[in-house]
């Protein structure tokens, strides 16, 4: 795929990431949400959504039992409906990685993702971040969700942010690295684009919107900006990078609109859990209710779906 000599115009200097027009992004986002997803498309889409979920618990009050329940749910979303997929992964704090590995065993299709690097603030030394990352991986994490240093980013220290991501990536070894930009703290879509470029160039396997710990989490416009960064990188290098919107996606209709966006921005190739994930806790149940409605014809009530 030809991309012209854009690089010679802007180079890979992160101060020169391509500009983003906020209103244009929002308008494009509205076109995705205007798509009407019906019948077989809806059913196939809902299955895809379930299979893309990183079923998440990231609470101070988490316990091993809570994590074990989560792992069971990830593999058995709703046993009364046959043919449901598992979720893509469970996502937990580092101390619970071992618990999750014990619960899922080595053959489960469900991956174990662990947040690391002093999630959610990231305020510690690089040394601590690397130690935490290594421990999570050696405890059995398949994937590491790190946070970038937003303070350093906002003060313009892009090289620091880049180097830190690269170091964590190295510490991950074979585990896949998801880089959380915490877009709600980045203030502008231009910054979201710039942070995406940095994370991708530094070796992130996925870029991820949010920790879910602040009010402003994943939105369609923010995710679109990140998808466009992924697309531009793919066009230049042929290297695929994954995307994980997280936080604020709790309804199946919204999740389907994310799939529309991925399909129309990156193409069908990204419509698998290898390249696209939802970071969510309550989304799974809403999707299950929709699936049950499609199967039974009846609108559903929450009491029939397990709250884990």
């Amino acid at each position: 795929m030809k991309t012209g000599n854009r690089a010679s115009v802007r180079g890979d200097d992160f101060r020169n990431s391509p500009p983003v027009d906020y209103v244009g992004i929002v308008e494009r986002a509205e076109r995705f949400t205007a798509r009407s997803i019906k019948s077989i498309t809806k059913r196939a889409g809902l299955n895809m959504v379930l299979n893309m979920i990183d079923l998440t618990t990231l609470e101070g009050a988490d316990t091993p039992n809570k994590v074990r329940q989560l792992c069971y749910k990830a593999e058995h979303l709703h046993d009364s409906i046959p043919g449901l997929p598992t979720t893509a992964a469970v996502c937990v704090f580092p101390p619970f990685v071992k618990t999750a590995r014990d619960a899922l065993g080595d053959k489960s299709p469900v991956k174990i993702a662990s947040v690391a690097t002093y999630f959610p603030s990231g305020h510690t030394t690089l040394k601590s971040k690397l130690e935490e990352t290594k421990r999570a991986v050696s405890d059995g994490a398949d994937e590491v969700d790190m946070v970038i240093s937003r303070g350093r980013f906002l003060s313009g220290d892009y090289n620091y942010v880049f180097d830190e991501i690269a170091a964590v990536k190295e510490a991950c070894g074979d585990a896949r690295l998801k880089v959380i930009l915490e877009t709600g703290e980045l203030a502008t879509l231009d910054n979201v684009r710039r942070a995406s470029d940095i994370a991708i160039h530094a070796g992130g396997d996925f870029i991820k919107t949010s920790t879910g710990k602040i009010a402003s989490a994943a939105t369609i416009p923010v995710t679109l900006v990140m998808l466009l960064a992924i697309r531009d990188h793919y066009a230049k290098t042929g290297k695929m990078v994954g995307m994980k919107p997280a936080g604020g996606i709790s309804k199946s209709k919204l999740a389907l609109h994310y799939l529309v966006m991925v399909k129309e921005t990156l193409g069908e190739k990204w419509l698998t859990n290898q390249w696209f994930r939802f970071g969510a806790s309550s989304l799974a149940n809403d999707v299950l209710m929709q699936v049950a409605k499609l199967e039974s014809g009846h609108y559903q009530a929450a009491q029939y779906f397990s709250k884990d």
Partner: protein
Amino acid sequence: MAKKKSSSDWEYASAPETTAVNIAKRYDHFINGKWTTPSNKKYFATTSPSTGRKLSEVAEGSKKDVDTAVKAARVAYNGAWGKMSGRERGKYIYRIARLIQERAREFAIIETMDGGKPIRESRDIDIPLAANHFFYNAGWADKLEYAFPNMPVKSLGVAGQVIPWNFPFLMAAWKIAPALATGNTVVLKPAETTPLTALKLAEVIADAGLPDGVVNIVTGAGETGAAIVNHPDVDKVAFTGSTGVGKLIQKSVAGTDKKITLELGGKAANIILEDAPIDQAVEGVVNGIYFNQGHVCCAGSRLFVQENIYDEVMWKLKQRMDTLVIGDPLDKNTDVGAINSKEQLRTIKRYIKQGLKGGADMYQPECDLPIKGNWFPPTVFTNVAQSSIIAKEEIFGPVLAVQTFRTVSEVIEKANNTPYGLSAGVWCDKGSRLFQVAGALDAGVVWGNTFNKFDPTSPFGGFKESGYGREGGLHGLGAYLDLPL
């Protein structure tokens, strides 16, 4: 980014708009508040361009019918409407706006059935915008003395209005709302291929209880339009359509004191500078030329791309074109609908032939077009010369001609190198440069980092051979007032 589609792809299932609509088998003229049979008893069919199916038949307006309508409009002007206060006039116009909102879904479906445009557009753009035009102008009716300070507020009389088929309902609103707000009465003729929503508007006007004869709607083809334009008791002619017909109209009324406004053709330049937000620019290009199948006078039909970003823009544009859904206009997922008429389809095909013959390269996304009806895929021509026909003439279809440039002064010169001057677009991240280019473009509407945006408060109209006079906004009121110079 894969272009080839496979059976495992997650494709959108059809999602047709289903609300029932009420279309009569036959429509008469709406004259003097009554449905009036045509004097020659002749009717003609209006068909759906997406299926070829006949939807209804409408009256063929004769000179005599037009005369009856103008007389009714004159009586209303001299009578109830002319004597009414601006405040009361405004209330009637507000009523029309509300009634349109209440019946918006029905209007959207009929507009899409009769004209072929995607339901997404008629539902989200045409119909709400039309209602907004009535709302906006209604509020002017009792405030006209503030619009043109130190000028007497004086209406013109009977306005004869001839509108096109690309935005049938919206154009009716653009024309009728300011005419009524300024105290004129109206004889309006919708285009012969898209008469239905104007006739549904007649129902609304009747429901709103406007005095008889204030708005008259006469259907027919070119001759009916000519009869309105040339009627000696018409004081104001407002026309939207082709530059060719616009010129004929001006010529035919040259010997009279009729006030004219003409909204005519265009060949808008859409300019992408090297520092532009490219993905949004590409989206603007797509909206600029494939909106309403390119049946848009202000369509961005000429794309100018700075040479050093040309490759990137083109692959992004083609990729975006590949995602456009073409087909049943009533499907909520359709992005590009049917070509409005067989005649227009022939015109487009003729230009395509000329483009290819001229040596330009053509790209069209792979798509299965329906067998029945009038269809043409989104098309882009590259390697186009400034002097080639596809870069010069208005095609009025989903056909984009791309050229490159090296410097800002070069692109301004090329962009202005046309007799048209309706609209233009410029994409640039640097404010000082964007406003330099916007200022230098000979066009009545310039979209900076956006395209094809419309609003009742925003004056619309062209420079040069794209016509004269403005519609919309404060300035649009001037077209319907007698302002002495």
